[in-house]
């Protein structure tokens, strides 16, 4: 149902020209599209019904993100809903959820999550306030966010997440564009003062929740990558049916037919890896990490294989911005790098399966006691 609705809506409203228009605009997305997403209920998809959401789970997010990947959706869904909203839902007090999730779901508030430290980010207590200092790298959609969630070391040594207005004094954004058209920023924080209730939750260590939300984001963006991969395979097959050389369509050449089968099989493996990650998000941490990092590494590898071969099979036109193909290739390139590269996740996965018990464990899980 969700898939059909999303596919129909995006096929109708979100073609390559719409994508290019958004990417080339000053803000890098289409506000009217964002409002439409709110009307479709997508901005509330993963949140509990009590919080005004649709009560969807990882599977629903995966379905929507795959559709987004296919359609090259560039709106800040991952940063705002999956990461930002996800953190609020995981950590926030009822009041914070009320304050942040309601406008987020209605499309009036956008979030970003500043996590990766360039220099250590700390929160010093002063009176009832906190002073945040440090610097952050690669903050997805920060230039379009109204509030930025900032992770920082609390005086206790535990990690916390703070809700910081994007225009707070002492917070400086260095915005830039990513290869696939997203807006990102590096962020400097110099004694940014926020009130005590800007800390999400009640002061416990947020490390596990942060990792959980990031794993959800990796699973979500993996679904996006599967959608983009599938689109590249499909467009390549269609192209070879119509492109005639040496008196026959390219699809009749066995060397190309076999190459496209290998691309299609790579897509199918990527989809399976992604499904494994999606279904493991609520499992034990080791199982979740294994599935998520395994998927990131496997899909990254397969996506590169598909993208390169799609371009090669198209010939010269595949190397240009004339076709959507290039946009998919760049989207997949960004996927490979974001939230830890293929190499980093392969190392993380490898460290886990160094334990023979995990290497030997099949994918079906025992119920957690």
């Amino acid at each position, binding site marked *: 149902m969700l898939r059909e609705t999303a596919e129909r809506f995006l096929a109708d409203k979100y073609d390559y020209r719409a994508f290019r228009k958004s990417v080339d605009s000053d803000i890098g997305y289409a506000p009217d599209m964002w409002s439409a997403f709110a009307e479709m209920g997508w901005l509330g998809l993963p949140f509990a019904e009590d919080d005004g959401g649709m009560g969807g789970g990882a599977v629903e997010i995966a379905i929507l993100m795959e559709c987004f990947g296919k359609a090259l959706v560039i709106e800040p869904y991952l940063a705002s809903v999956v990461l930002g909203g996800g953190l609020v839902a995981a950590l926030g007090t009822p009041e914070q959820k009320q304050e942040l999730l309601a406008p987020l779901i209605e499309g009036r508030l956008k979030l970003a999550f500043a996590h990766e430290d360039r220099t250590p980010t700390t929160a010093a207590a002063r009176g009832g306030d906190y002073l945040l200092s440090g610097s952050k790298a690669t903050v997805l959609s920060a230039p379009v966010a109204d509030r930025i969630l900032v992770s920082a070391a609390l005086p206790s040594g535990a990690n916390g997440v703070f809700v910081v207005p994007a225009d707070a004094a002492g917070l400086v954004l260095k915005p830039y564009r990513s290869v696939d058209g997203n807006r990102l920023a590096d962020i400097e924080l110099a004694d940014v003062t926020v009130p005590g209730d800007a800390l999400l939750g009640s002061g416990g260590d947020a490390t596990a929740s942060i990792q959980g939300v990031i794993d959800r984001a990796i699973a979500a963006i993996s679904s996006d990558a599967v959608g983009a991969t599938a689109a590249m395979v499909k467009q390549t097959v269609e192209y070879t049916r119509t492109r005639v050389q040496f008196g026959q369509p390219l699809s009749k050449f066995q060397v190309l037919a076999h190459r496209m*089968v290998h691309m299609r099989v790579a897509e199918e493996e990527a989809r399976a890896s992604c499904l494994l990650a999606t279904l493991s998000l609520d499992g034990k941490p080791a199982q979740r990490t294994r599935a998520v990092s395994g998927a990131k590494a496997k899909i990254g590898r397969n996506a590169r294989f598909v993208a390169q071969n799609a371009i090669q099979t198209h010939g010269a036109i595949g190397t240009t911005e004339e076709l959507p193909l290039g946009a998919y290739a760049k989207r997949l390139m960004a996927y490979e790098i974001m939230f830890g590269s293929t190499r980093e996740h392969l190392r993380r996965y490898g460290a886990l399966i160094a334990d023979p018990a995990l290497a030997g464990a099949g994918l079906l899980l025992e119920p957690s006691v």
Partner: protein
Amino acid sequence: MDLTLSPDDIKFRDEVRAFLKDAVPPDMRRAQALTTGFASEPEVALGFHKALVKKGWSVSSWPKEYGGTGWTPVQAYIFETECARAGAPVYNGAGQRMVGPVILKYGTEEQKKKYLPGIISGDDHWAQGYSEPGSGSDLASLKTRAVSDGDDYIVNGQKIWTTFGHKSNRMFALVRTSTEGKKQDGISFLLLEMNTPGITVRPIHGNGGDHEFNEVFFDNVRVPKSGRIGEENKGWEVAKYLLEFERGGALQAGRVRAQFTKLAKAVQARCPDDPDILHRLAALGTDLDAMEMIDISVLSALQSGANPGPVSSLLKLRWSQLRQDISELAVDAIGADALKFVPERPLFESLQLPEDEEETLTQTPRYLNYRAYTILGGTSEIQTGILAKAMLGL
């Protein structure tokens, strides 16, 4: 879809584990661990098969009225995985997984009565008579001739790559009953007894030193027509049905997982700090997880003899590659030990060394033998051609 096992599944798994504890004694486990070919020696496998018979599990995937278990796809998966983990022999593939489903679908009542009991009991060993010297990938060009003579056929010709042909008492064979029309339309599917006068078996030794394959020669061999499955000249449909079982019908995840686990342990023991080996091991792990997930996704199609369809070509293509990749990394991980080669077979009789040294000596033969995985049962190129049609419509 949910990856979490239900309490009933856990109960079933524990029952399988308890069964395997007794059914796979240490010497059997060792014999299987030292098997470097594709299947266990029939005499090793038979002991396991007999235990399965006693438990009522010997033809688990068949319909219940023919001795099957009625397991859910998840239960079948659990069973295969636990067997692999316990190091149980790979038993009676040609009977249970290949000709059995064919007889169930295309056989007459009489044929079912004649052939099924021996498959269920494990007393019959079946050989596959498909390939010929001139008909490998182009299987339908086969020439072994069956000429009608009253109630019999007179068979002349030659089969090749006959797995355990030297230890089989029965064979299912594709024979040419007509040279008219399309080559596919002149083929019949024939069951025969290997002790029939005029049959000669000659061994073919693989690069890995194992004798699994054979040539089988037919010199005026008289075979009753009652052994024909399906109509005369309609054997190609039957043959293709069987091939889909051969390619994808068996759940492979458990076996490949067990192979991978041994590799992971060997890497830990031999080269735990080699970044190249560790990188490749992790990449293989992610390949394996993806394939296992595909296996789980198609489980329901395999239930009770249902034809797995074109996805079986994808499974065959990728599982065969993965087995090769694991065997390749296993050889690379043992360094100069890969030079050592013990030619005598079976290894469980010729070796008397500590377990890890014995294990090391299996890697080179396995690496060499496993080159055949991407060739037998339809080469990777053939599977890719099938997938071009089935998945891409080309």
